[in-house]
């Protein structure tokens, strides 16, 4: 019995020791529940001061700054994984269906474009962001391998890169001249330059981080499994 207690205490001690070495871990300043089931992607609209959140079950929502749902898109997809804003469109990736959907800001479906990528069903185009400086849409596959498709605003492919930034990529966003990648498997936030070279990375104390965006002064990460949004001080990044 004494031996069992010794083993348990030793294991707990070991875990605490391991976790204490992660000096790059950052802590959220605020956490709130998200009313959207299985949130998988988030985008912030600075003009209207609203958020757009997509759900794993193919739904798109518009939320106010307090994260209350204002509107739901009438069009349902299959497996929405990420959302971004570009030129007054709300653009959504449907990973399983291999589609990119363009909505207006009132969440009316405007157009659909098909993506011809035959990787695994859950390893398709996971994330999308818009680099407004370069006027480029950037798409990323989830894993095995992680491809970055650089496209123009009409989704015409300009370049394809394979990167090895993390075990998987669950989300990507462009912010102030850098790209920020989120990894669910590694629970990491990774900052890169515009050619996707790693600049810095941080461990996130979040279960199943699936989407990220920046508002004026905060980085916001949503967790699919916990249906929560975590707010971090943006000056840390």
């Amino acid at each position, binding site marked *: 019995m004494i031996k069992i207690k010794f083993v348990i205490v030793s294991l707990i001690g070991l875990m605490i020791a391991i976790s204490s070495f992660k000096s790059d871990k950052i802590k959220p300043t605020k956490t709130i529940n998200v009313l959207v089931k299985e949130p998988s992607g988030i985008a912030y609209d600075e003009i209207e001061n609203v958020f757009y959140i997509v759900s794993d079950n193919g739904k798109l929502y518009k939320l106010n700054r307090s994260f209350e749902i204002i509107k739901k898109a009438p069009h349902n997809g299959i497996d929405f994984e990420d959302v971004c804003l570009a030129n007054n469109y709300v653009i959504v990736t449907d990973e399983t269906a291999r589609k990119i959907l363009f909505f207006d800001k009132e969440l009316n479906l405007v157009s659909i474009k098909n993506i011809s990528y035959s990787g695994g069903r859950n390893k398709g185009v996971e994330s999308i962001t818009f680099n407004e400086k370069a006027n480029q849409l950037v798409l990323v596959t989830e894993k095995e391998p992680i491809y970055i498709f650089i496209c123009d605003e009409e989704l015409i492919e300009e370049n394809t890169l394979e990167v090895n930034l993390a075990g998987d990529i669950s989300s990507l966003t462009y912010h102030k001249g850098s790209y920020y990648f989120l990894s669910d498997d590694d629970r990491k936030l990774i900052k890169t330059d515009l050619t996707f070279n790693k600049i810095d990375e941080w461990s996130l104390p979040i279960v199943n981080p699936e989407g990220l965006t920046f508002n004026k002064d905060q980085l916001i990460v949503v967790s699919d*499994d*916990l*249906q929560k949004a975590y707010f971090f001080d943006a000056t840390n990044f």
Partner: protein
Amino acid sequence: MKTQHIFITAIMLICSFPMISQLSLSNGKHSLEITGMMSTYYNYRFYKDSLNGAPIQDFKKNRFKLKDAQIQFEGRYGNTYEYELQFDLADIASIGEDPTNPGLMDAYFMYKGLSWFNVSLGYGKTPYSRSSLTPFIYSAYWQRAQISRGEFFGRRDIGLTLSQDYWKQRINIYLGAYTGLGEIGIKGDNDASGKLEYIGRMDIAYPSRFRYREIDDKISPIPMFAVGFNGRYANKILADGEEFPEFSQGEFETKVISGEKLTYGLDFAFQYMGLSGLVEVHQMKLTPNDTLSPLLAGLSGEQTGGYAYSGGMSAQLSYYIKPAQTIFSARWEQLNINDLIEGESQRLSIAMAYQLKGFNSMIKVQYFHILQEEELIDPLNWTNQIRIGWQYLLR
């Protein structure tokens, strides 16, 4: 020199083998994914000198074995229909040797268009036992625990399952009706009783949903727990002269009986910072309609009350060292096949898996050590066993 050359070539092949990504096809509404898996191991048993006074002369378990050669088709139509077809060519090739593994692993479709529950119809895993429901590709072991590997209760069957999740997927509920013949159920008719087996399961997780996994490969930043309760009931009474389909009763003759059978189990799982654990307990009350059934061990009704208990447990602790891409695990098992017959078995397994490319490519080693045998029911001719091999997923 030649052996060295072959060995070095094999290692180079393993290390340089490109990962084959699975394929998926989609027309925008209907998507189909094709994946596969192969695994091969070498097994070595440390045999006893003799069993029941006779010298051991059969060493056939010291061999290479193609464990898996699986192909899987997973389809989805919109958000309403899903289907899965999975088969194992290694099992099909060896069906003469092991008829309890027919090779078909899944063949079902699911309707998700109802608000209260999903309906699944066909052949696949029954919702009983967390260990059984956990996909084996995510395990460091080469064999499941004795109690949940399909000899004690059936792991697969043909039937109807209703399922639903609640509270942000933290609660999962399953209810189903099946032939009760387990893996043999797909071979044709029901047994002569014509009765079904009914299975129910509920699991509750906190603080988030807990997938059916036994390794904390995502290094959970907060402690996560899940507890599951499940039960299954069948009352199949065969008329005189009738028999169950061949092999359906299983090695311990507990999978299906002529009489009433009630099985219930509890499982508890946790994971935190790479450490994960799983404990399962199962018990079966077997009430044969024939008072002369071997299950009652030749004892009188006054001594037995007309029933026997069978059951056991397994407890497993694993630790994933992500920077080293290595999993260490230890498992203790206990099984009492029949409480009316003296004895129980206990075994200890230690496993290690080195990930060449995550779970997609793993070198796995499992060492089995028999602590105690149930000699009267299941005498063994070995004391220790080691298995080493390679698991490769085409996905």
